[in-house]
């Protein structure tokens, strides 16, 4: 009887402790116990300045995965992403690097495509846009040559100041 009580109290302790540990590592620590929940996609950008591993991948502002690895390939940046299995990417989606707020973290935003075929696991996103180069833009803004920029939105803001 005494031994049963001892075993019970130790069991309760272990159970609570393991539950807390599981909560910490799976909910908060994003530990991947089962590898089947997502698939890999890669994309080649001309510039990924500021993008970090584990950065978010979003579509329409919804989190759909994260950046797995960033490497160099022929002078361009090759980014490997993990995308949730529930999200299918069409062949003609566009991946662009954006910034949360003005000085926030960089993340990858994927805008949906219309193609009938989907990118398979291990496939690549063809269309990519590098991040907006704020320093470059500031330089142009200061020297007043923003008007020559292709993007209309930037032209307006530059024109107003002039």
């Amino acid at each position, binding site marked *: 009887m005494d031994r049963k009580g001892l*075993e019970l109290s130790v069991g309760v*302790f272990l159970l609570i*402790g393991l539950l807390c540990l599981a909560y*910490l590592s799976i909910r908060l620590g994003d530990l991947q116990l089962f590898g089947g929940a997502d698939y890999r996609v890669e994309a080649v950008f001309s510039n990924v300045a500021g993008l970090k591993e584990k950065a978010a991948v979003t579509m329409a502002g919804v989190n759909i995965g994260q950046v797995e690895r960033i490497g160099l390939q022929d002078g361009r940046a090759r980014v490997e992403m993990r995308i949730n299995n529930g999200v299918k990417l069409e062949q003609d989606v566009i991946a662009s690097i954006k910034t949360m707020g003005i000085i926030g973290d960089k993340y990858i935003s994927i805008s949906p495509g219309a193609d009938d075929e989907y990118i398979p696991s291990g496939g690549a996103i063809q269309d990519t846009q590098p991040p907006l180069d704020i320093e470059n833009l500031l330089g142009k803004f200061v020297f007043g040559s923003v008007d020559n920029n292709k993007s209309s939105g930037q032209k307006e803001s530059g024109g107003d100041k002039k």
Partner: protein
Amino acid sequence: MIYLVRKLGAIALDLIEGLGRMGMFFFRVIRGVGRPPGKYLSTLKQVQFIGTKSFFVIGFTAAFTGMVLGLQGYYTLSKFGSEGLLGSAVGLSLIRELGPVLTALMVTGRAGSAMCAEIGIMRIEEQIDALECMAVDPHSYLITPKLIAGLIALPLLTAFCDVLGIFGGYLIGVQLLGVSGGAFMDGLTSSVVWDDVYMGIVKSFCFAVLMIWICTYKGYYAGLDEGNFGPEEVSWATTQAVVYASISILVSDYIITSILL
């Protein structure tokens, strides 16, 4: 002059002898893992002593630490208008630093001192000598179950401490001070990564070994330096055990952090 030099030499020799004895002690305890007297029941008792009975102490410590972190963090962050970062501030500081260290310190005070006193009294009452006479290895019989139990209990207590501390921070930040609950939890889940949790677990394992090692060693050799085995030596050994264990936990915390970071 000669006397001073001799004294210096004596101190150095004592130091090296003590370190060697500590190392041998640890080696014998580790060796005891696979040795006869069965350890199932004694380990279970120690897990109950170190783990289950520390629940309330750790719970109170964790809840109030989390709550005060919530208050202080809110006060500081609201100056910059970024109260949304409260979740990551509370979560990261608890999981990386405060959880493992506070748990280890509380367990040292609660269980480490008791262990040291228990073994010290067995030493002065010659119970340990009696065990040796009966050809029972006292390291394997007395200390090894405590080490195993410490290694099981401390990481789990640390996890419990982290979760309860975060809950305390949530309570103050969200319910009392009006930070948005979604922002709190989102900041928490997005800023805490597996490496942080892993770091906390590694720390708690190291602290468990250090704490059990120092506390049992001090108890086991209580009165040896004085050459006099009485109640005063046990109290002195217990004091030393708690002080040394706490200091070594804090120092090793810095070292582990600098290695893992």
